[in-house]
Each structure stands twice: as C-alpha cells, then as structure tokens.
C-alpha cells in the first residue's frame, strides 16, 4: 500500500483542563510536504511536540515505516531522523552559528580535524540547500531569518529525514518566505519529508501536497491540496466563511495625535544612526502604517517612540504633550498603547497567570487596587471579560500560567490588553504575527474600529497584505529614513516593494533640521 514514513494514530494528549489532541491521526508520506492547519490553540504544536518526544501522549501510537516506535525524548526522535524547528527558537544567544549547529553532537574530543570537519559539513549543507549563514557570527547579532536557517542546518547536520517546521514563516520577511518555500521544495525533492505548520493559506497552497486540519484538538480531516481551495481550507479550520479583505468606511481624520519631528535614534549594532531624522504625524481616525523590510530601523524607532530606548535627537508629541523624554508610565497615561514586537521579551511575564498579564498595564489604576492592596475579584472579572471578548483560549482560563498557552493565544492576550486600555494612540507592531486567519480578521476589525472611534493607530508591519488592506496611509522606511508616503488605494504591491527595497523614493533626502 502507501508507504508512509510516519504515522501518528489516534493520538490523545491531555493538559490540566484541556484535551489538546483528541484522537488525532496523521500520515506523512516520504518526500512530501504536509501542512498542518488549525486555529490558535488547536493543538498543532502539541501534536508535533509529541512526534518530537517533548510530550508523551495518553493514548495513541506512532509508527515509522509501518513499525511502532516509542519516542520518549528528543534524542529518541533524533535517532529516528526526526528534527524540529520550534515556534520560538531554541538557540544559545552568545554562541556562534557554527557552535549552535554542532551543540550537543559536537565531536567528542574537539580536536583540530573534527572542528574543521564540522565546519566543512555545515558549509556543504548550506551550499547544497541554499541556506546562507555566516558560521562565525554570534546568534544575537544575526537576523531572525538567519537564526531560522541555523535551526534548519541543525536538523540537516543531524541528518534528519523528517523535518518539522512549527510556524517558520511567522517571523520572516516576504522575501525570506519565498526563499524558505524554495528550500522546502528542495528538501522534498531530495527525499526528505516535511511537516509544516502555518496560518498562511497562500503558503500551504504554494508548497504543500497534503494538509491536515485540526479544530479545538480534534481532527477535521486531511485533504489533498490539488483538490482544494483557500476558502475550503479556512472553512474547514474555523467552521465558517472567513473574509480575506478588510471592510472599511471612508476615514475621517481629525486632530493630530502623534507628532514626530526629526527623530534620530543611535544604532546598537553599528556606529551610525538606526533612525535618521524621521518626521511624520498621525491623526485621530486614521491608520498609518510604517512599512519596510525587517531591520530598516522600525524596531529602533518603536523603542524610542514607546520609551524603551532613548532618542538622540528630535521631539515626539502625543496629544500636544511633549513626551520626548518621558518615562514609559507617563506615555501610557498620556494615552499610548503598545503591542510590542517581541511578545516573550516585553509583552508578557510568562510565569504570571493570564489574568495577571491582562492587567499588566493597568494593575496600578484605582479600579484594581485599594490603597496598594490588589483587588483580586476586580482583576478576575476584568480578565474574564477580555478572555470572552477576544476569545483567548487556554486550559484554565484566568489562572492559566501564560507560559503554557499557545503562541497565538498569548498574542491575543496582549492585543486585547492594549486595545482595551484607555488610549488615544495605538502602536501596534506586527499585531497579527502568529495568529490564525479568524483571529487576524478579528484583530484587523478591531484596528479599524479603533480608527472609526477616533483613535490614532500606528501600525508597523512586514506583511504586505496587511499593510495594503488595513492602512489609510503608508510610510515606507528604508535604512532608517522615511523614503516614501503612499496611498494604499492608488498603489500596487509591486510599487510598495520597490520603495521597500530602496529602489524608489518620493520624499527628498533632507539634510537640514527643519523644526
């Protein structure tokens, strides 16, 4: 019959309070790319973690080439040729690329020859599959895209045949995604089998052979990509039709809410400035998007705007109040909400409960304490409200330890918290990263609703679709400068791309420091 390299049969996995996988089966053919689709918290990462030996299922069987196997830990998985790139990378920051790749399987006695051999092997693999890396760079200094290539090389170095990718594209730029798709096709051609989790249906349509869909822990079915469509997949996954375009009324811009003038921010990596002399306004009732390829100063600009880092020149005014040198709490009180880029570093205290994280920006308000004593009931009620409203799914509701929640639901918690907090300006950095299509639709609706309620929204995004669909005005950032201001209604994605790559600009380079 069919030669399945991996079969997971009737897998059931329970966490306290939730069935993460409920009798799920999945069959992977040799040499195919098999996508795994499902809403946030549907149990995709859990299922893959079981295959990788991180969790033990309560019920079910795993077979390789038809023979039952037990996988008690990642080492067992590795022995069976199974490798995984996790949703959140597991690299050692202050190691070099090469060291990370060989970590754990380094030649026993690190002698001259072995080290050289390792390096040779890594470079050979990197050439073979087009995975460009600099073996001597430190992880902390390389882009997310390159970090991911390091993770992939780790699997290849271990000669894994079955490669699991948990949301690999969530953190990549469009170009990097293209490259990754090509790399994955290359793997499949060379006989490797791939399991690929993603929320982006375009990617599934582009590379996958089959797609298995999960919903709330249950198997919805496996379909052949040839015979299906985006619409059908999304319906299977969410249980209803999802609209891919954003419905918006005409915008009615009002007063200036955010005014940025000649802002300059020094770089942490090189000697120059990461943000150079940037000026723009955001009015109430409009969504302004800063577009750009990752690493062109957006991160540094947002850090300076939100108070995480200092600026070296220029002024920032929020609702006519100068907040250039204000601390973060003052900015927050002045009406700034901030959905941060890095949810684990800034957005959440992972060891706190969900409810504690939901009040992380507001615990100090009189609503939640009385003379410094926390009002637990008030927090619980508020948390339950947000959990309902934003459909934040977790195993134990408000008292779930946030670390155990699925990535998408962690993101929903942050988005809910920041949108619900009193604000005039919402700074949203990649707010839909890692979210399922249903949740993305919802968040986009919320952003538009903010704008219609007369709030100012500053969106920082790498997703071209999101930029084109959601924003009212696009500012393109290239090498720390705003090089273009575009109207999404009269611009094409191609044109936007030209601006983002620096090939075109419609704002003159200005050297003077106009106030």
């Amino acid at each position, binding site marked *: 019959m069919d030669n399945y390299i991996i079969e997971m049969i009737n897998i059931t996995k329970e966490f306290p309070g939730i069935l993460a996988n409920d009798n799920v089966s999945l069959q992977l053919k040799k040499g195919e790319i098999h996508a795994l689709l499902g809403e946030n918290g549907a149990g995709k990462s859990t299922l893959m973690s079981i295959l990788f030996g991180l969790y033990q299922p309560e019920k079910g069987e795993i077979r390789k080439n038809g023979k039952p196997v037990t996988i008690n830990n990642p080492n067992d998985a590795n022995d069976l040729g199974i490798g995984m790139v996790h949703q959140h990378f597991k690299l050692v920051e202050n190691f070099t690329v090469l060291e990370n790749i060989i970590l754990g399987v380094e030649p026993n006695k690190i002698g001259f020859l072995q080290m*050289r051999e390792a390096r040779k092997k890594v470079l050979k693999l990197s050439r073979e599959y087009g995975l460009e890396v600099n073996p001597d760079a430190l992880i902390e200094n390389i882009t997310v895209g390159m970090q991911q290539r390091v993770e992939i090389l780790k699997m290849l170095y271990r000669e894994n045949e079955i490669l699991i990718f948990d949301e690999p594209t969530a953190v990549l730029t469009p170009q990097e995604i293209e490259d990754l798709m090509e790399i994955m096709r290359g793997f499949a051609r060379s006989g490797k089998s791939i399991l690929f989790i993603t929320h982006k249906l375009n990617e599934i349509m582009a590379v996958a052979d089959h797609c298995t869909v999960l919903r709330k822990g249950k198997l919805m079915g496996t379909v052949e990509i040839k015979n299906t469509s985006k619409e059908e997949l999304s319906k299977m996954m969410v249980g209803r039709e999802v609209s891919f375009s954003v419905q918006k009324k005409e915008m009615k811009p009002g007063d200036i809410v955010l005014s940025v003038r000649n802002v300059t921010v020094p770089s942490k990596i090189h000697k120059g400035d990461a943000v150079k002399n940037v000026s723009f306004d955001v009015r109430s009732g409009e969504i302004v998007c800063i577009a750009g390829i990752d690493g062109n100063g957006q991160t540094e600009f947002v850090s300076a705007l939100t108070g995480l880092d200092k600026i070296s020149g220029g002024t920032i005014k929020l609702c006519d109040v100068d907040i250039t040198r204000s601390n973060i*709490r003052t900015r927050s009180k002045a009406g700034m909400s901030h959905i941060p880029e890095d949810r684990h570093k*800034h957005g959440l205290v992972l060891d706190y409960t969900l409810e504690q994280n939901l009040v*992380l920006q507001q615990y100090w308000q009189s609503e939640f*304490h009385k003379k410094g004593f926390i009002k637990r009931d008030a927090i619980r009620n508020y948390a339950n409200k947000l959990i309902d409203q934003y459909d934040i799914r977790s195993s*134990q509701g408000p008292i779930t330890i946030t670390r155990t929640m699925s990535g998408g639901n962690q993101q929903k918690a942050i988005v809910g918290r920041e949108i619900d907090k009193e604000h005039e300006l919402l700074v949203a950095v990649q707010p839909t990263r890692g979210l399922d299509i249903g949740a993305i639709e919802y968040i986009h609706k919320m952003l538009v609703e903010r704008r219609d309620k007369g709030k100012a929204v500053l969106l920082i995004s790498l997703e071209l679709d999101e930029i084109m669909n959601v924003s009212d005005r696009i500012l393109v950032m290239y090498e720390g400068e705003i090089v273009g201001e575009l109207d999404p209604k009269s611009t094409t994605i191609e044109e936007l791309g030209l601006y983002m790559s620096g090939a075109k600009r419609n704002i003159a380079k200005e050297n003077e420091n106009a106030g």
Partner: protein
Amino acid sequence: MQDRNGSSSKLKVKKLLKIKGSSSFTAALLAIALGLIFGFIIMLFASPANSLPGFFTILTGGLQRLDDVIYFMVPILMTGLAVGFAFRMGLFNIGASGQYTMGMFFALYAGFMWKPPGNLHWLVCILAGLAGGMLWGLIPGIFKALLNVNEVITSIMFNYIGMYLVDMLIQSNAKMYVPTTTRTAYLPVSAQLPALGLSNSSANISIFFAIAIAVLLFIVLNHTIFGFELKATGFNKDASTYAGMNGKRNIILTMMIAGALAGLGGAFAILAPSTIPGSSMTYEPINIIAANGFNGIAVALLGNSHPIGIIFSALFISYIQRGGTLTSLYGYKPEIIDVVIAVIIYFSAFAMIMNIALGRFLARRKEKSAEKQGQEMKDAYQEVQEIDHVKEEV
C-alpha cells in the same frame, strides 16, 4: 474546556495552590532526605560504630532543646527572609551578613548609649537594628539602581566594610567594649528582649515578631501592587520595564526592606535575654563575617524564597543544628553537621537554580571550549575562505 465560571475557578485556584505548594514542599523534603543520607554516609566513614546512635541524635537531639531551636531559629529566619525577599525581585542579596552585623551594632549602640524613659528600651533597640540593616541594604540598592553596579559585588564589599567598621567602632567605644574579655559589655536588662518564660532559656518574644514579619511579607508579595511589581521584575525585567514599572525605585525599596530584615535578625540575636542573671549576650569583634548571613542564603533556598516556606526551613535548619551539636557526645565533631547542612543546601539549591543557571552554564562552557577552539577556528578559517570562494562561484 475553558473555564469561565467564577466559583469553580476559585476551587481550581485552591487546588492549583495546593499542587504548586506541595510540589516545592516535596522538592524540599527530597532535598532534605538526600542530604541526610549523605550525612549518614559521612558519619559511617568517620566512625562506623557510632554512626547509628549519632545519626539518631541528629534527628532527635533538637527535641531535647526545643527552646534553643527557637532561639537560634530567629536570626536565620530573618536573614533567610532578607535573601528570599530580594531574590523574588531577581536580586541576589549576598550582603545579609553585613546588614545583620550593622543591625546588631545599631541595636547594641541603642542599648548602651540611649536610655529612653519607660520600659520600651528594647523596642527602641530593635528599631535601631532595623535602621542599621536598612542603611546597609540601601547603599548597594542605590549602586544597583542608579549606577547599575552588580548587587553581588557591592554587597560582598559591604559585608567586609560593615564588619570592620563595626568591630572598629565597638573596640573604640569604652562604654561598649571590655578589653579584658575582648567582648562587648553586658547590656542593661531594659535593652534585652522579654523571655518566653521557659526556665533557663534564651528563647524570647522575637520569634513572634519574626513569624509575623514573614506573614506580612507573604501579604506584601501576594496582595499588594508593590509585590506584583516586584515579582514581575524578578520573572521578566524587560516586561516590567515595558509595563512602566519604576525599576529603580523598586530595586532601592527592595534592598532597603531586605537590609532591614537582616538588621532585625542581628538585633534579635544580640538582644536576646541571657540565661545567667546579670549578664547578656555579647559580641566579640574579631573580624569574622557573621555566619548567620550566609545561613540565610541556605534558608532562603530551601524555603524556595517563599516567606512561609522560609519559616519552616529556618526551623528545620535550626533543629538539625541543635541535634548536630549533640553528636559530639558520640565523638563526632560538630562540623559533621555542617557537612550535612551543606549537602541539604546543595541539593535544594541545585534543583532551584538549575533553570536559571543553565543559560549561564552553557555560556561558561562556551568560554572554556572557545579557548580551546580558538586556534582551530583560526586554522579552519583559512579553509573556509577557500570554500566560500567556491560558494560564490556556484
């Protein structure tokens, strides 16, 4: 699946708390058991014939001297709290010794030099001790908050500065120091803490203060916004910054509180009533860092930095120390008990620090292997350049 029901979630909270509490409790018990086994093995080697009765004494000896167990428990309970509380914010307060010594000195000073009216002299001495410790926590706190100097370094320095300063100040004060005995003079009775009334015992009311303070800290940590900020900072400093918490103020405040706790420990120790009428506890200024400060680290680790857990771990360590001193009856050196305790600490500390240390451990490993690899890397580099050329051509 998802729980949105208030009352059942309350039940679950309790359940969760129980599970969480009991798991760290079991971890501590396991650590203790391992430590005891190891201690027994050492006793077996030291003197096989006496090992069983000796070990039995360690386990039960404390029962005969329960009042001493209480008396010796108070100072390490306080230093344990001083370390544990700061640790919840991610600060390693290794300076509990210096804070303890400072507290003791301030208490002594108030005892000898001040004569407040009424019968509250001892209370004034306690508060003086609190202030002394607080001062010695405040300084490293300020260094950390404003100049970002690692608190471990400053507080180690302040252990020495505090100790030498105190010894010097005492020796040069004729009212406090008796050169012939090389110890401090006897404190007036009014400055000594009221005893618990057990005959022939130094156990005193400070145990109630200490336990009340532990409970107070528990409330601060779990029911106040200060505690919320403190723990958030300890778990994830970046997120606490992002949330607009005032890290500088909180660091200073936390170190002040920690210092005050250790200072109280020193005051409680020196102000305890003597069993011999007409005398008092005395301090010998011989340039030794107070051991109770370091015992506090052990107490805090075993108690998992949880105020209530620290009460029990202080009780346990004090108890086992009392039993240990009695093993000398069987020819064992009292130091044997130090080994046992060190092992207990080692195991419990290991379990707790594992997670945090893993990253640092890897980094250290890297440093080592990097040294070794340095040369190979350089040699290999040549090769790579060649390979890279090939790559460019492809």
